[in-house]
């Protein structure tokens, strides 16, 4: 193959950095976009899942005969029908495909029934007779850790224990504060319930059309459960109705693939909302016990934290979530000595796993709340305390000892956040004035106006983007250029965040403005990793850029040959191919020929961390954010209204400013939800509020005004200078609201979501 001395000249189209239109929006507006539960193929039949009604028990028998006797019922599957591995899982294979001998959480799948209609499948699932001898569930992680606790699984009760140690841990500071903090079980509550379609293939394999975050993780687990080589399992992305971490784990995919192969027919299922609450892992409930030592002027001397995460019945992502929960437990602060000891624990509660912020949300609530205690103890302004201790260029990260990225200006973010305007009017409104939603309690006029107090709180958030911790991390993409334009193929998943549109921008610029279409993500396009950890725009952009560069070189060679010019005289500009100074339409330049090129991006390497102290370069780099919340609380009723959230967020570079803003407002809405209403309650391990009637996410009437300053210093490592943008809005918005609630009420607010009884003034 001929090669070029220098890459061809490509004039970018100026797409990156502009709020260009998203290609997926028109079909989403007119309803023609196909979500996973809209898929339909001839001969399709429907599945339904039989779930455990108890949190823990011995599964004595499963009688599917009554279901099979019903009209239209085609098959019923139990663990004995699983052709391959009985155990699957995101990282650790500790979760039965269908319950095997013991059930460990409410809603655990026990059997899968297939019928000719979805309604009949649900009725048949109800007819399956399950005999379970209930056992006493263990629902408190500290009880599960205690000596003599029953082993809840052959793997034991501890998913991971992590110890981080740095500096001289023997000294005592003149001032010490202690705080204990708890966070609730937040559900991702994506609006489109779990749904997928599995179609048997002629080669004995199966294609699963799934709404998922990671096609290859799904493929790996489905192939294992089916006992098939991975090449025979294809996973294609079906339209995703929101994810936020809740689609990282396999739910129905393996059941459907197993049924489709056994029956030789396409099988689809859609979960009901109550089922969705039982089916995917939620954010880990946490308990943090802090001791912070400081000098009298507020200079931090040490941070000690003991972290317990309730991992629920199966491992899911508990291991890495614990990593995040511990590494961010000292926030973005300069601390000479740190000791964090964390455990993620198995219980009989709902499975916990990934949700936006991935352990760092809990850590942020803990460290920021404890810092406010210190500020109160020292009579120092909480903002000043943060400014004094924030990481600066030349510092090392407090928990890992890794040199901190000097382009992340933590103090600058704090100052820019505080410089944003306060709400107008800057006082508590009276209920009679204008907007009924401006007042705690809303249109119900619950509050009479007396006892309403305003509070303001500030918090800083920090988290890594990308996986880190020594994981090899890469992404593949390919580009095909023909007369009609370019088609980008990757397995990176669009989950609503706007990835498709970002890749159109990135490829459009790299290909001199030629028309670009992004094909539906498919496992056959090569590994891309998950849309999680605020990583996918970074990773997929890196791969697409690499593929585009190669495609341009190849295109120059092809065009040069066809037009008998030197390859050095071929360039791209304004959506045209410039051949020896003459702009030609793509079709004229390329004729019937097609150019194919693949690309790969490898993330900067990280270190797994020292096994005893956790020290090392465990993160690629960091995303930092500042939040300021203003709340009004009726301190007699304990009813709160978040009036405004201000934020300064470092996004490195905004690929699409409008979509970055959408991540900010959406992430803050989830942060506000965790602060005030969102907790999936599971007394005795049994989910009690699995519906949108009882699990309350913010509505349009609940959302505060958001004022944002998006900071773009450029990341030195990220492709195009971008950093992750998805998680930071959720990192510290909750902590800022909690601080504002404390300021308004004088109450300690030691747990989120804060309940009315936590907000009644003394």
């Amino acid at each position, binding site marked *: 193959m001929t090669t070029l001395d220098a890459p061809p000249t490509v004039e970018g189209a100026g797409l990156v950095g502009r709020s260009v239109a998203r290609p997926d929006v028109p079909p989403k*507006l007119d309803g023609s976009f196909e979500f996973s539960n809209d898929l339909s193929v001839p001969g399709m039949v429907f599945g339904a899942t039989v779930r455990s009604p108890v949190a823990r028990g011995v599964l004595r028998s499963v009688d599917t005969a009554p279901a099979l006797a019903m009209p239209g019922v085609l098959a019923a599957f139990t663990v004995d029908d699983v052709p391959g591995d009985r155990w699957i899982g995101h990282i650790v294979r500790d979760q039965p495909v269908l319950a095997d001998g013991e059930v460990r959480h409410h809603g655990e799948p026990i059997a899968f029934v297939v019928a000719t209609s979805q*309604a009949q499948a649900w009725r048949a699932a109800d007819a399956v007779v399950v005999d379970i001898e209930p056992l006493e569930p263990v629902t408190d992680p500290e009880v599960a850790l205690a000596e003599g606790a029953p082993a809840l699984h052959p793997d034991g009760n501890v998913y991971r224990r992590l110890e981080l140690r740095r500096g001289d841990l023997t000294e005592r500071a003149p001032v010490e504060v202690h705080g204990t903090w708890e966070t609730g079980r937040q559900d991702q509550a994506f*609006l489109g319930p779990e749904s997928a379609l599995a179609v048997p293939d002629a080669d004995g394999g199966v294609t699963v059309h799934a709404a998922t975050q990671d096609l290859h993780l799904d493929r790996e687990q489905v192939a294992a459960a089916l006992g098939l080589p991975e090449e025979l399992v294809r996973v294609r992305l079906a339209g995703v109705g929101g994810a*936020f971490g809740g689609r990282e784990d396999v739910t129905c995919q393996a059941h459907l693939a197993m049924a489709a192969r056994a029956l030789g027919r396409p099988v689809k299922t859609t979960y009901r*909302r109550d089922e969705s609450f039982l089916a995917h892992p939620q954010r880990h409930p946490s308990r943090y016990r802090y001791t912070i030592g400081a000098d009298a002027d507020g200079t931090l001397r040490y941070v000690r934290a003991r972290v317990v995460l309730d991992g629920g019945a199966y491992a899911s992502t508990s291991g890495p979530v614990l990593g995040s929960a511990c590494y961010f437990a000292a926030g973005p602060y300069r601390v000479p000595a740190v000791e964090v000891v964390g455990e993620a624990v198995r219980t009989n509660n709902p499975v916990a796993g990934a949700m936006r912020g991935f352990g760092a949300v809990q850590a942020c609530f803990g460290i920021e709340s404890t810092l406010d205690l210190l500020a109160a103890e020292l009579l120092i302004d909480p903002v000043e305390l943060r400014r004094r201790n924030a990481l600066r260029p030349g510092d090392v990260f407090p928990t890992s000892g890794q040199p901190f990225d000097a382009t992340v200006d933590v103090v600058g973010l704090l100052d820019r956040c505080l410089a944003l305007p306060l709400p107008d009017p800057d006082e508590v409104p009276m209920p009679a004035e204008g907007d009924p939603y401006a007042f705690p309690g809303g249109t119900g006029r619950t509050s009479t106006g007396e006892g309403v107090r305003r509070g303001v709180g500030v918090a800083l958030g920090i988290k890594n983007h990308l996986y880190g911790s020594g994981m090899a991390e890469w992404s593949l993409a390919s580009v095909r250029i023909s007369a009609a334009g370019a088609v980008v193929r990757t397995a990176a998943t669009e989950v*609503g965040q706007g990835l498709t549109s970002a890749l159109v921008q990135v490829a459009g610029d790299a290909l001199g403005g030629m028309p670009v279409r992004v094909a539906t993500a498919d496992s056959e396009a090569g590994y891309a990793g998950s849309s999680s950890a605020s990583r996918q725009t970074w990773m997929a952009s890196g791969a697409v850029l690499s593929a585009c560069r190669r495609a341009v070189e190849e295109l120059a060679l092809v065009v040069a040959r066809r037009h008998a010019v030197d390859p050095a005289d071929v360039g791209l500009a304004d959506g045209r191919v410039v051949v020896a100074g003459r702009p030609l339409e793509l079709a004229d330049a390329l004729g019937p020929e097609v150019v194919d090129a693949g690309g790969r991006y490898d993330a900067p390497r990280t270190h797994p961390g020292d096994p005893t102290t956790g020290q090392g370069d465990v993160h690629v780099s960091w995303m930092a954010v500042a939040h300021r919340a203003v709340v009004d609380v009726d301190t007699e009723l304990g009813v709160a209204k978040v009036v405004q959230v201000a934020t300064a967020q470092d996004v490195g570079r905004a690929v699409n400013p409008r979509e970055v803003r959408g991540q*900010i407002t959406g992430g803050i809405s989830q942060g506000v939800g965790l602060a005030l209403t969102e907790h999936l309650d599971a007394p005795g391990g049994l989910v009690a509020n699995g519906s949108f009637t009882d699990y309350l996410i913010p*509505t*349009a009437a609940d*959302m505060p005004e958001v004022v944002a300053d998006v900071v773009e210093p450029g990341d030195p490592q990220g492709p195009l200078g971008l950093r992750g943008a998805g998680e930071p809005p959720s990192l510290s918005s909750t902590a800022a609201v909690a601080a504002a609630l404390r300021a308004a009420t004088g109450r300690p607010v030691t747990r989120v979501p804060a309940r009315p009884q936590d907000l009644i003034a003394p």
Partner: protein
Amino acid sequence: MLEEVAVTVDGTPVALEAELTDSLLRALRDAGRTQVTGGCEQGECGSCSVQLDGVLVASCLVPAVVCSGAEVRTAPGLLGDDLAEAFARRGAVQCGFCTPGIVVAAESVLARAKDEGHALTPPEVREALAGNLCRCTGYEGIVAAVVEVSERRASVVPGSGA
């Protein structure tokens, strides 16, 4: 037992087939009208909003068999070009699952405001859309787009052809 229920959907006659217990949402989707989405089937999320003989309803709460002869309007039948443009420009759509329901609710309140001859304020829009959950956007782009379109429609003089 399946009953046949004749309706029109956005002006086109459609023969729905429904059991007594089926909701209008389910019957519409079974008939391939998947532009109506179901996020909860309990009347809580608003994704299934349609206009039934001109009235905004949660189609998951309406039994299909009572809809015989009804005129059903869904997002593609109601969405004005101005609202589509404003939704896209303002970032009102991310995953899009809530979108068809929000379009129906928004066009319903926009029509009411136009009839009453005024433009909607942000609090009015927030109240009107409080029954439509969106988990992705934080509602900012949605509310801004509806307010903007309402102002524009209110300033158009009827009969001016603008």
